[in-house]
């Protein structure tokens, strides 16, 4: 039943549409308007159901090139996941350690991980760039970024 790609994608979308519709049907009513907040979402939900069904029966019309895009070597998937983990950590630590420190650490290690081997350049960029950004934002533009453990 799920032998083609379109059919599998279609099922995922169908689930998404149903989830959205369930939530849309739970929206509270507001008495003073002819078109309530739930009308458009319900329409969108059903539209997606319809489109998902169309996709289910559509022929796979992908080119070879598009198919090749999904053939990612396992090593690269690993790299991708690692970068996502880096970004996740970056976000989590941003307000704790502060913008400059977190960004510096992120730039240095992420570049290192991706195969950048000029350590001195890397270090210089990793320190100067966030510092420049930070000073521009906080001092000149008066837009605050998280200072974290830095004294200023």
């Amino acid at each position, binding site marked *: 039943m799920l032998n083609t790609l379109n059919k599998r*994608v279609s099922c995922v979308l169908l689930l998404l549409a149903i989830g959205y519709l369930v939530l849309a049907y739970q929206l509270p009513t507001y008495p003073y308007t002819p078109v309530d907040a739930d009308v*458009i979402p319900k329409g969108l939900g059903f539209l997606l159901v319809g489109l998902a069904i169309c996709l289910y029966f559509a022929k796979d019309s992908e080119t070879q090139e598009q198919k090749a895009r999904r053939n990612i070597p396992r090593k690269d998937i690993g790299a991708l996941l690692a970068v996502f983990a880096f970004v996740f950590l970056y976000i989590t630590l941003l307000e704790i350690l502060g913008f400059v420190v977190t960004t510096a650490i*992120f*730039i240095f290690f992420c570049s290192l991980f991706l*195969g950048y081997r000029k350590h001195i350049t890397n270090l210089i960029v990793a320190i100067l760039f966030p510092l420049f950004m930070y000073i521009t934002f906080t001092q000149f533009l008066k837009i605050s970024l998280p200072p974290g453990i830095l004294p200023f």
Partner: protein
Amino acid sequence: MGSIEGIMTGFQVAFSMQGILYVLIGVFVGTFIGMMPGLGPISAIAVMIPITFGMDPTSALVMMAGVYYGAIFGGSTSSILLNAPGVSGTVATSFDGYPMAQQGKAGKALAIAAISSFVGGTVSVVLLMLLAPVLSSVAISFGPPAYFALMFMGLTAITSLSEGSTIKALISAVVGFMVVTIGIDAQTGTQRFTFGNVNLLEGLDFLVIALGLFALAEVCSLVINRKDLSMENAHKLGSLRITKKEFKEMSGPMTRQSFLGFILGVLPGAGATIASFIAYITEKKIAKHPEEFGKGSIKGVAAPETANNAATSGAFVPLLSLGIPGSGTTAVMLGAFLVLGVQPGPLLMTDRPEIFWGIIASMYIGNVFLLILNLPLIPYIAKVLKIPRPLLISLVIMFSIIGVYAISFNTFDLYMLLLFGVVGFIMRLYAFPAPPFILAFILGGMMEQAFRQSLTISNGSLFIFVQEPIALTLLIIAFLSFIFPLIKLLRKRQA
């Protein structure tokens, strides 16, 4: 003729030593802030307001106007070089600007952006000068039904924004529309799909979606191809020179979009983002080779860049002649006027002609400055591409993070950014186009509100959409643009 006298005064103000200097400062600061991640014209103007306090109003406002269009001008750089639009008005520029940069034509792409911004800016200033008093009536001619029709017309173009499967493009659009329904509904105050999370009450910011779907998704592809030598081209700056043939190719979109962008800018609520998208779509629709769009078409860069700058000048019409701020940015601009003791409105032109015309006249100089400031800088700016791939990836991620953080100041939106990065990457893998998603996100929200406002006003009667001539005209155009491709398709099949 009072206004000719006024225009003369305006030129006197703008071409004085002081005027020129302030314009220069304004456009310089504006371009600089516009190039910063996440900082668009709104933040640029907001951060400059306290500095202008106490200054001579004319000089200060000439400067602020410079900051405003300078920021729009500067915003295109990161769209083209990194696929990371820093401001919403330049998302459409990345559709073709980034592919151009990837093909080793970064210099050319930036030059086209600069020149078409200049043309869009200058033509629209001429229009502003000639038509500002007349156009104020156009600015208020759109009621909710007309806005609905305008947005609807934009949405019907979704299928033309993608190559490949129409169904997939429509699915992208519907999901994009679904995402914009998150948050408090303005017409009823109902919380929709917020899961009780305060961070979702105002919905997701446009930049979270744009940077996620475009910049972070691109980062994923870069990570996978980081050792791929066939992408060597992307390091090249390429020649800045625009050939005669290319210039000829650009001139059509530039002329048309200067006018269209300006008109859309005049309409309160439309603005630079919508103008740039509509410019892109219309140019693609009327192009002889629409299949080039999205793959590095010159027109695809020229059209949105012309339009977003033209719209910026257009937005001054309701602001200066009616005192109506048509967008978040002009609302902040209005604040800048107030701080200086100037009340924009119907009386500004007669009461303070030196300010009214001074600002407009200064925009000529400002646009020239922007061009001569930016063109020589292009080779240096484009050096960004020489940065080794691993370091560049880290910097693009940082750019996106700081961009979102400078708007929302909380980490929740950053996690959302990451989420949309993943969504964008998966969409790429399965060939779901991202432009329809972002277009539906922009137009869908406004369309829904306009639709429901109309029906509240008409007490639920749908006739309101055909009673108003503007709405009716736009709906007919939308209908035709939907029908024509179908007829074409049928003819082809028969033949």
